[in-house]
């Protein structure tokens, strides 16, 4: 593990921003909505980066930018150190593939499983029909589906089987990076664990790198090697999964971890003092975006944007932290 720091990242995002123009009424002028405000991330080979945050924090917008479905307003996406521009979408798709949340809507019901899984090969003009057929057979075997399903249709499969088809489709062109957007949230508990085990095995076997978006922190802890916590378009804390779960730093991260309901009947439902309202992203609060909900907030938090405190490969955006000899430490203000 010691050589990890020196490796080149397979995927790097530098200062990505994305601003949408939103109209609020028929005659009102469009207002800017900053969905992503300066996100920088690095993924190394075989990393599993867990991306967590509430709905509306920009997780899915970030995933869309990585998949080339949206162009960032500013900032760069680098794959293996090379910048990917708007013209290189096909190249991006070769290397980055998605697995979506709902396997009921992400598979075309009128196409056979064989057609669904081989479509990426057809789109990218890889191989002939014989080699595509072999690739499909290999993929179905890899994701644990019986050979006979290839002539079947999505409607004949259960939710877990459909998600396996979606995984086979994502992996058939040998991508290096897979964006998993809540891949198990629509599945039952017993099926969820099968898919999580499969994703973990495939990562080992094929050396895949995952960006794993989930609201289930227990799943993130189980699978992720690194975790990035997003709040209102910014990453407020990023560190190794072990460090994050052992010692969450940002007050928002702590609140998220406190809300995890472990199946322990001796505990009651935790009391989270966050308030109910997620701020309006069109007029985000000044200073630290999180201050209206933060239990520690001071006058400084309400006026000044928090610093980006970096120590090694971890960072936290909070006024309360400073860099010290042994990483990040809390600082009284």
């Amino acid at each position: 593990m010691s050589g990890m720091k020196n490796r080149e990242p397979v995927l790097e995002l530098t200062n990505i921003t994305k601003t949408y123009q939103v109209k609020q009424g028929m005659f009102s002028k469009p207002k800017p909505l900053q969905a992503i405000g300066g996100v920088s991330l690095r993924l190394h080979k075989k990393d599993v980066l867990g991306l967590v945050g509430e709905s509306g924090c920009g997780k899915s917008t970030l995933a869309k930018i990585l998949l080339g479905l949206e162009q960032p307003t500013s900032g760069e996406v680098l794959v293996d150190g090379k910048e990917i521009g708007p013209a290189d979408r096909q190249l991006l798709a070769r290397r980055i593939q998605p697995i979506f949340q709902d396997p009921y809507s992400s598979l075309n019901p009128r196409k056979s499983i064989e057609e669904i899984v081989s479509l990426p090969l057809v789109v990218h003009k890889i191989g002939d029909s014989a080699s595509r057929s072999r690739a499909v057979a290999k993929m179905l075997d890899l994701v644990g589906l019986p050979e006979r399903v290839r002539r079947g249709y999505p409607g004949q499969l259960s939710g877990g089987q459909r998600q396996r088809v979606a995984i086979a489709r994502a992996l058939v062109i040998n991508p290096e990076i897979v964006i998993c957007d809540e891949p198990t949230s629509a599945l039952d508990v017993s099926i969820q664990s099968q898919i999580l085990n499969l994703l973990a095995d495939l990562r080992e076997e094929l050396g895949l790198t995952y960006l794993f978006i989930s609201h289930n922190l227990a799943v993130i802890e189980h699978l992720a090697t690194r975790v990035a916590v997003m709040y209102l378009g910014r990453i407020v804390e990023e560190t190794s999964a072990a460090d994050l779960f052992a010692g969450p730093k940002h007050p928002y991260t702590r609140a998220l971890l406190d809300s995890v309901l472990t199946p322990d009947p001796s505990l009651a439902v935790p009391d989270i003092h966050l308030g109910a309202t997620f701020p309006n992203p069109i007029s985000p609060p000044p200073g630290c975006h999180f201050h209206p909900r933060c239990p520690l907030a001071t006058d400084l938090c309400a006026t000044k944007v928090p610093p980006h405190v970096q120590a090694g490969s971890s960072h936290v955006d909070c006024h309360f932290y400073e860099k010290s000899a042994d990483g990040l430490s809390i600082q009284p203000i």
Partner: protein
Amino acid sequence: MTDPILNVRNLTVDIPIGAGTLHAVRGIDFELNRGETLCIVGESGSGKSLTSLAIMGLLGKRLQVRADVLEFEGRDLRSMPPREMRALRGDRMAMIFQEPMTSLNPAYTIGDQLCEALRLHRKVSKAEAMTRAADLLGKVGITAAESRLRQFPHQLSGGLRQRVMIAMALMCEPDLIIADEPTTALDVTIQAQILRLLADLKREMNMALILVTHDLGVVARIADKVAVMYAGEIVESGSAKAIFDAPAHPYTRGLLNCIPVPGKTKPGEPLGSIPGIVPSLIGTVSGCAFRSRCELAVEACATTVPERSASGEHMYRCFHEPLKSEVA
């Protein structure tokens, strides 16, 4: 001990389909007292939602609902005329659904919808109803309640909408609330707040609460009693402590092994899983429905499995001893 507020014996729901009959709920029993929370837990298709809809009398005529006993506050729900049932529903028993956006009418204000819930059942003026609505919005943790009453559902966030749904269920101070996956569509931080709110209100108003969910974390934290459903049957029931500390049925144990638990499961190690899929419930279903997925299955499992007691009120349907199989 007072009489239970809800008493259900041998409830079945059959759905006639082209090829035969789908036995969606197959003879379930439970009772619920005031101030108690029952969690019905199970996977999709286990019949947990149909059970709650059957109690509320919200299933269509095409579905055949039968029961030996189906009593609410001593009144027989089976023979109750639709008119009386409508008077009961929303007044003495209320329901909270999963998706707060689709269960609110987008064309009416929050205030109108809250008032309607009360004025259908009570003779009160609009102004009085509005006052009560504002009170309850405050109670469920919505600030600036007066101005919220004039807003439409689309102007509220998911968490606020679910709070409105809870306030609506509380308008007539019901004795029983059935909540079907009330927090599944919400963020984790909001989920904790909504669950806490439900638990506090239940205690304060001495109501009975049935919570239908697939989330074992939610169940452990909020339930007094738990009923684990599989393929239309309650396979195990008992106190939350009994179910989580000493699960007796192989299915319950399997479910508990499937979920990653921070601090307990080792990151990166394979999670437990339950092989196979839920059997079809069309036609005659005999024996233990879980036997096709169970590693302990023996020949006897194909015959009718009696309900056994593990300890006190902790019941389960399996031939195997809970302790012996725990070693396996």
